[in-house]
């Protein structure tokens, strides 16, 4: 174990741990400001914001400081390293660097999207001088709104940290971005005719520490200080990227990746980033329904749930082996558990099936090489399996075992008139049921559909339960490799919808309000594979479930 001294505080380093000064200072709770450094990108040490004083402890105990300032990002902290990050010399250098960075900056914070989450703003308040001594005209560089389909560049706000350039070279491997021109005239640009439209392109907007690269989707939509952030998980594919969902007044405005070494790392793909729009779709199913002979009898939850309980009990009572439920890979494990345990509580003979798991193409790994072929080591994967929780739902179904079946068998049963009751859970915004299957299943005497968007079967459902999208629910998803992460309710769904957890909580006759943590604790007791749920909460990074359900001790995983 190595010991280093940061700002006169002792820091113990674990064996083999490689930290630079910025990371070491973070450990003692001190922020060394930086722009160009990013943990997932190569070190260029060019912004010069993280300059610190560094020294070594000699064998006789004396400390010899280097005469020059050194960039903290580039300087490793080892046994005996002494870092001074708060001296007058360091502060003077920070002040000078910030003055340089703001020299040609337009200072257009009032109209800038980044204002409120801008490192140039924050550091100026903290380390800057407060006024500019520049008396000459500022450089005026034309804005470039053609950087990509979703990306625009406010050239004059750029501080040339080159994070975006390095991202396209090192992570996406697509290399669309480059630095053109020289000195204070230089700008970020694309190669002619090759816009930055790769599937990870949106990350350059997050990486930009200032308001230079902006998302056209989010541009001028909200001041960031109005946004409320909920930690959640992207539902786009089985990678299960940790995300922050930013909303204001029940309107989601953007998804941004939340760094999680156990899940995807630091980034997310554009498919997930912009793939949430359906949650505010005008098409959303907004009221539950109880139908009799095709006619709507009620749209009142207080009637629908008790009637459904009665109808289900009756059907299961008549012919339990002809009753079945289809579980969607878009359900949370809590929802899957509540529905499965409820139905099996009515009768162990009720059949349970996993609904369709959509796959599109092959797993798409990054970086790519010049010719678009995947390159090792893989830094990001967009998975072919376009559902967030196939693995978690499967684990629940495995536990309940017994009479399992498949969707196509059920459709065949329905077509043959051998289906008494069918409980269908949807959730896939891109549709999940083929029309032939819908026809077969629709022939069941009792059709229950729980979904968010209309489908061929929702029109003929005897009971329509209007659930919530991933942004409206509490619960947890298990990703492709068994990482269970919590999703959070960030917005209320449209009037008349209810989070699926609440629907099932009420259906199963539980008292009080739906509480995902309580369900998780119950699952931990009942299902060995979910033993790691015992705490109720899964933390920010989630919990990795192995085959036997126990959390694995040391897992450092990359997506």
């Amino acid at each position, binding site marked *: 174990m190595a010991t280093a001294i940061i700002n006169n505080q002792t820091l113990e380093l674990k064996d083999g741990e490689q930290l630079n000064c910025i990371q070491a200072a973070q450990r003692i709770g001190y922020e060394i400001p930086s722009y160009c450094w990013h943990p997932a990108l190569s*070190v*260029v*040490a*060019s*912004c*010069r*914001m993280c*300059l610190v004083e560094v020294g070594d402890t000699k064998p006789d105990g004396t400390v010899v400081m*280097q005469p*020059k*300032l*050194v*960039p903290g990002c*580039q300087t490793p902290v080892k046994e005996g390293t002494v870092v001074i990050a708060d001296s007058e010399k360091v502060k*003077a*250098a920070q002040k*000078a*660097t910030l003055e*340089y*960075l703001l*020299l*040609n900056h337009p200072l257009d914070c009032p109209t800038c999207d980044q204002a409120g989450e801008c490192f140039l703003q924050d550091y100026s308040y903290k380390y800057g001088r407060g006024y500019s*001594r*520049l*008396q*000459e*005209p500022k*450089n*005026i560089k034309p804005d470039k709104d053609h950087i990509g389909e979703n990306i625009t560049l406010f050239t004059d706000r750029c*501080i*040339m940290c080159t994070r975006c350039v390095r991202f396209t070279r090192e992570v996406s491997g697509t290399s669309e971005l*480059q*630095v053109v*021109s*020289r*000195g*204070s*005239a*230089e700008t970020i640009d694309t190669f002619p005719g090759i816009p930055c439209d790769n599937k990870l392109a949106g990350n350059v907007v997050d990486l930009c520490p200032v308001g230079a690269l902006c998302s056209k989707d989010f541009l001028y939509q909200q001041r960031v200080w109005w946004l409320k952030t909920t930690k959640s998980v992207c539902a786009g594919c089985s990678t299960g990227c940790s995300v922050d969902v930013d909303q204001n007044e029940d309107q989601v405005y953007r998804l941004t990746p939340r760094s999680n070494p156990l899940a995807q790392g630091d980034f997310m793909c554009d498919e997930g980033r912009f793939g949430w729009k359906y949650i505010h779709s005008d098409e959303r199913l907004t009221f539950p329904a109880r139908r009799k002979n095709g006619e709507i009898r009620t749209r009142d939850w207080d009637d629908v749930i008790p009637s459904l309980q009665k109808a289900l009990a009756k059907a299961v009572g008549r012919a339990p082996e002809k009753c079945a439920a289809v579980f969607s890979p878009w359900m949370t494990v809590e929802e899957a558990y509540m529905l499965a345990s409820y139905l099996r509580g009515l009768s162990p003979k009720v059949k349970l099936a996993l609904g369709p798991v959509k796959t599109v193409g092959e797993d798409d790994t990054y970086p790519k090489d010049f010719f678009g072929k995947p390159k090792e080591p893989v830094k990001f994967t967009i998975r072919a399996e376009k559902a967030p929780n196939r693995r978690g739902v499967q684990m629940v179904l495995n536990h309940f075992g017994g009479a399992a079946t498949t969707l196509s068998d059920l459709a065949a049963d329905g077509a043959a008139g051998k289906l008494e009751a069918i409980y269908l859970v949807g959730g896939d915004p891109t549709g999940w049921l083929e029309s032939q299957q819908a026809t077969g299943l629709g022939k069941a005497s009792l059709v229950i559909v729980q979904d968010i968007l209309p489908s061929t079967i929702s029109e003929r459902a005897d009971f329509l339960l209007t659930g919530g999208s991933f942004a409206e629910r509490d619960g947890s998803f298990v990703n492709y490799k068994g990482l269970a992460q919590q999703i959070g309710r960030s917005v209320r769904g449209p009037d008349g919808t209810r989070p699926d957890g609440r629907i099932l909580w009420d259906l199963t006759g539980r008292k009080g309000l739906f509480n995902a943590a309580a369900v998780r604790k119950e699952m931990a007791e009942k299902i060995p594979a979910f033993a790691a749920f015992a705490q109720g909460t899964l933390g920010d990074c989630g919990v990795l479930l192995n085959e036997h359900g126990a959390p694995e001790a040391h897992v450092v995983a990359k997506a």
Partner: protein
Amino acid sequence: MPAFEPVLLARIAKPNSAKLETYRADGGYGALKKALSMTPVDVTTLVKDSVLRGRGGAGFPAGLKWTFLPKDHPGPIYLCVNADESEPGTFNNRILMELDPHQLIEGIAIACYAIKSEKAYLYLRYEYGRSYRVLDAAIKECYAAGLLGKNIMGSGFNLDIVLHRGAAAYICGEETGLIESLEGKRAWPRIKPPFPAIEGLFRKPTIVNNVETLCCVTHILNRGSEWFKSIGVPPDPNNPRDMGSYGPKLYCISGHVNKPGCVELPLGVTARELIDEHAGGVWKGRKAKAVVPGGISMGFLSADELDTPLDFNGPGKAGCLGLGTAAVVVVDDQTSMVDVLYNCCRFMSHESCGQCTPCREGTAWMTKILERIRAGHGKMEDLDTLTEVAGSMGIIPGTTICGLSDGAAWPVKNAIRKFRADFEEYISSGRRSVTSAQELMAGAH
């Protein structure tokens, strides 16, 4: 003092001096033959013993640099010849390449043999079209004569020289900028360590040497290290870190002199001697106001510092950055230092690669301030701002990756310290050096 007999420039006045035939007639490639009969370690030791310091600007001992290569490296090891001579006022490499290219090629071959490199990249400044043609022809002659290629002179030593033309950027003269540029990238100097000797071109051990340095190697092989050390200035006994300034040096003299040109003299000649005896004195009967000792990035010597010896220590003692390329630019007493400094700053801001914030923004800011002063809108506090900006830039305070920034800061620091009265007079008198049209142009960008 007896006239110094040129060594590096000995052949340049001869007819057809660039031809292999004439070079061989003058005993050319004898040094290479001699080197090939020695072991690489012995060649390195010989060059190290001669204390040949790099002629490109920094003055680092060349032989010592060669010993930094990793031992028993499986290869490849590369030699990069820095012929990106871009420091304003410097043109000695050009003369060597255009008029005596084989002297350089022989030096390259010897150096490659010493460092066990089988490939040398000659990184040539784009603007040197004639050098390119001459070197290209000379390299072809060598291949035809078996002096390059496989099994040179039957020794089993192989060497290829790749002649590469840069795309005209000052920063490509910085050794890691040069390497990046050779690799086909933007010439952004690398962060060090690792130094090129450990990880350089294509991530392999690489030595970067200047043209004049390699030309000296040829003569050290021919005449020995003692001969080399008989020329120049021995180490300062009061400075244990001084290695001395040995050997002949090409001094380029330009600016306000009667006879500008390039002369070869032992290291340590004074600026005054150079101007008066080798450049025919300051033009139009005027006096020198300031003298650049080694390219504009080294700063200025004032009129009363002209007796400074131009060796590796002298200019530093007079507050300059160093000897640099020994390109002496003379400024006469009728010239405003404001205009001189503006020209320096304009060059440096144009050539800043833009990687490090202080250099990218600082060079441009200093240029803007001087532009404003030259437009008649200067203020006294501008001089303090200029000094402060210059003081916060460079590898000496530790705020940049490479030394371009130091070179951009030094003329500013020097000029304002040594010629402050000039600046103050300029500002207070309300003078202006630009026309309204130029002023409009300046404001327009």
